[in-house]
């Protein structure tokens, strides 16, 4: 989105509304809220030009806590509201806040359509792998075998992977971050907001009430560097507590984890991350790495420019007006075949 910095500097606090925040104490949503405010302050987005649109879920309470415009809509449909709003209001910065159930269960279709159209909005999916608000059923991102209120014997549904779904819809901006990695998160949010076109960010979020520790392997200081790999454009894909591991593409065209210094592997053998590849297949490959078999990437998987739906809609209107100025109401009503009945008739 086009950023419009202004004179008097807005602080992080300015972006918060007066409403009491009502997530459970310890919920990962708090951290995301804080980083969002930070990112907005960093960009100095005028509050009145920012709109948060959410569906239903714990995460979808988010708009209430921002002193911006907001719409806490209905379950799963936030991308559709956002599409309508952004199409008529190019001047606004429209964020969609959604949960794993909201975005991928009831709302999967609107999500993929917003992405494929490439509406100029930022979609943030708070993935806690559970239905929080309805008190603990499994979600489409819950792992197989998960025992929840609605799966007392364990779930048998293969989960969806949000980034794969986004890439299946040919998303131009795809990223991932983690609720408690505050700096990384704030940076990722800002990059997503600055991207022109749909930006899609999956955020690993802990629900400490119904799915506590779901992302422990990604947040625990001791082990996270062995389990996560940070994607940086132009940098080789290196990770590990000793930073001695890396990713390379083997002869079978598969990603594999290697250790630098072992078996003659050196840094130059590693895959260098390129978020701007036209072909999304490598991003797809990276997004398909799952813990514990693989380290899971965080950061920006893909960032390419594609035609933007709402820009094109408006451009089409502009051109049509130019080509055939529509004129006033009278000309509209009189268009086509008309005839006159005169008084003397």
């Amino acid at each position, binding site marked *: 989105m086009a950023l419009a910095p202004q004179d008097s500097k807005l602080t992080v606090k300015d972006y918060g*509304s007066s409403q009491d925040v009502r997530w459970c104490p310890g919920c990962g949503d708090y951290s995301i809220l804080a980083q969002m405010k930070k990112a907005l302050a960093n960009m100095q987005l*005028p*509050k*009145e*030009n*920012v*709109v948060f*649109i959410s569906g*239903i879920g714990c995460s979808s309470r988010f*708009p*209430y806590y*921002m002193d*911006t*415009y*907001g*719409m*806490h*809509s*209905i379950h799963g*449909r936030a991308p*559709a*509201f*956002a*599409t*309508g*709003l*952004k*199409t*008529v*209001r190019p*001047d*606004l910065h429209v964020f969609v806040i959604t949960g794993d159930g909201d975005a991928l269960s009831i709302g999967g*279709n*609107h999500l993929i*359509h917003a992405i494929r159209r490439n509406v100029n909005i930022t979609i943030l999916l708070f993935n806690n792998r559970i239905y929080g608000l309805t008190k603990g059923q499994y979600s489409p991102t819950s792992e197989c075998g998960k025992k929840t209120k609605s799966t007392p014997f364990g779930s048998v549904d293969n989960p969806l992977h949000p980034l794969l779904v986004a890439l299946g819809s040919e998303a131009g901006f795809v990223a991932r971050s983690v609720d408690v990695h505050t700096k990384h998160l704030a940076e990722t949010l800002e990059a997503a907001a600055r991207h022109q076109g749909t930006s899609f960010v999956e955020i690993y979020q802990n629900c400490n009430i119904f799915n506590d520790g779901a992302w422990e392997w990604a947040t625990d200081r001791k082990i996270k560097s062995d389990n996560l790999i940070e994607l940086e454009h132009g940098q080789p894909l290196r990770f590990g507590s000793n930073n001695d591991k890396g990713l390379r593409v083997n002869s079978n065209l598969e990603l594999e984890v290697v250790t630098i210094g072992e078996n003659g592997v050196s840094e130059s053998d590693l895959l260098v991350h390129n978020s701007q590849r036209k072909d999304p297949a490598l991003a797809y490959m990276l997004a398909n790495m799952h813990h514990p078999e693989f380290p899971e990437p965080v950061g920006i998987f893909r960032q390419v420019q594609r035609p933007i739906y709402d820009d094109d*809609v*408006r451009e*089409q*209107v502009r051109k*049509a*007006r130019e*080509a*055939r*100025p*529509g*004129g*006033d*109401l*009278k000309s*509209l*009503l*009189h268009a*086509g*075949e*008309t*005839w*006159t*009945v*005169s008084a003397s*008739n």
Partner: protein
Amino acid sequence: MSSMETVDTAGPQRKVEVIEGATVRFAGDSGDGMQVMGAQFSTSSVIHGNDIATLPDFPAEIRAPAGTLAGVSGFQINFSSQEIYTPGDGIDTLFAMNPAALKVNLADLYEGGLLVVNSEAFTDDGLEKAGYKTNPLEDGSLNNYRVVSIPLTRLNRDAVEGLGLDRKAADRCKNFYTLGLAYWIYNRPIEPTVKWIEKKFAGKSDLMEANLRTFRAGWNYGETAELFTSAYHVEKADIQPGVYRKITGNSALVLGVAAASKLSGKDLFYASYPITPASDILHEVSALKNHGMMTFQAEDEIAAICAALGAAFGGSLAVTGTSGPGLALKMEAIGLGIMTELPVIIINVQRGGPSTGLPTKTEQADLLQAWGGRNGESPLAIVAPATPSDCFTMALEACRIALKFMTPVIILSDGYLANGAEPWRIPEVDDLPAIDAPFCTKPNAEDGFNPYTRDERLARPWAVPGTPGLQHRIGGLEKQHITGNVSYDPKNHDFMVKLRQDKIDGIANDIPPLKVFGDESGDLLVLGWGGTYGSITTAVERARKAGKKVSQAHLRYLNPFPKNLGEVLSRFKKVLIPELNLGQLRTLIRAKYLIDAKGLNKVQGRPFQVAEVLEAIDKALED
């Protein structure tokens, strides 16, 4: 076909009977151009100065196999020197392009009516496809009609010969041969169609020439073939002076919302998912980009209403259009529109149900759905146009109400109105109602902005994103009165539920009272709504001419009802409510006014015939 005076207008050879009006139906394979013929004949008739009413009838299949009953497409037009309201119960002249078309349509042809058939289509194969055991042209079964059997295919080929068209292209012209003949029979002006052909085939001179030639050849055939004893002349109708155009209900809805956009200064955002018979609205709005109108073909009906609400939040005049099954899908989101009190117009072009039902046929069975088909107490305004051109007026009204009262409004049109055409006197722009819908741009309270304060008509302020200082959040959870914050307070909920109801009820103060046609009191009031207006009006007029104490009132505002409705009802001994459903308006009327209204209910996917309404009137008066 009442007055039968003979006049000489076109030389010695030509006998012309003057008649009041007639009903003609073109029928043939879908794809054979029946709809084009009907549209041309209608246009020519209105330009000639007649009043008209039309009834197109498509098959549900795109192209059912040629020659089968399922593939028959029809177009009926009633034209007259008097004011008319319906496409006619029966038909005076039937053009049947093949045996299937004959089979499907013959029952509606009046005894002694004129039947024009393409004799070359009555082959063994054609007869078998239509399920004829013997050839009706030969077995005497058509003795009660004036049959004109012409070798259409050959005559048409002859007419276009020498233009170098291949056979397929040549044969495709033959509907214009028939049309030419029809123009001769009913003495229609040919210029409008000549112009249309010239425009349509501009750049394809061989096709243009072919169609013009065969069209003229058809006309000449009437003139010379001596198969017809006379041509007919229908005088110009005595019509209010002004500039006219022909209009269908769907087009009128488009112009109505577009006009409201211009009058209110709010950009039109039309979000829709294609569905018969509402798709044409999407098509027509999407052609108005040069007027600044935006369309969004959504992934489904839910996305369409949601995008519309998003656009309404952003300050647009937001409209979404659909038909029955699509309306069902939109209901949850319409509830959000009610809770957030955003202006949004929902067009529902009713079709035959339940479920997929009869998608290309008309019906009035979505009233209860519109009225109460949402979770919770969720009142909204409902309007229903009475005629194709009334769709313009009521679309404007819907927009006016939505913007003035900050509420979703449902427009209930139907398949019959949507596709039916009539002449429409184009209103003067200055005569259109003003639509004043200012945005709130300033804080309205000491401590800032309260999005749920109320004006005198209980509407809340419309403050759109981008307005500094008015940041606020809306949503589907119950709202605190005034502040609009989320509130679980029991008393506040009760208050808000009743307030939302009061707001909608209060619209009654802002709409015209119900008018009675005929005497203000009497034995029977025939109360209608929606697209049945024409049949009811004609029937009531006839009954009154026959001396019966019958009056008519037609509801165009269905929620709330006009304030004087109860009082009007009370002035009649009996009330009859004809509806193309099992009695949905009747239920609402009975519940509210506790009168024993009776129904005339037909659910056949087609409009009432005047005779059916007349019969019900008689019966009601007798009972």
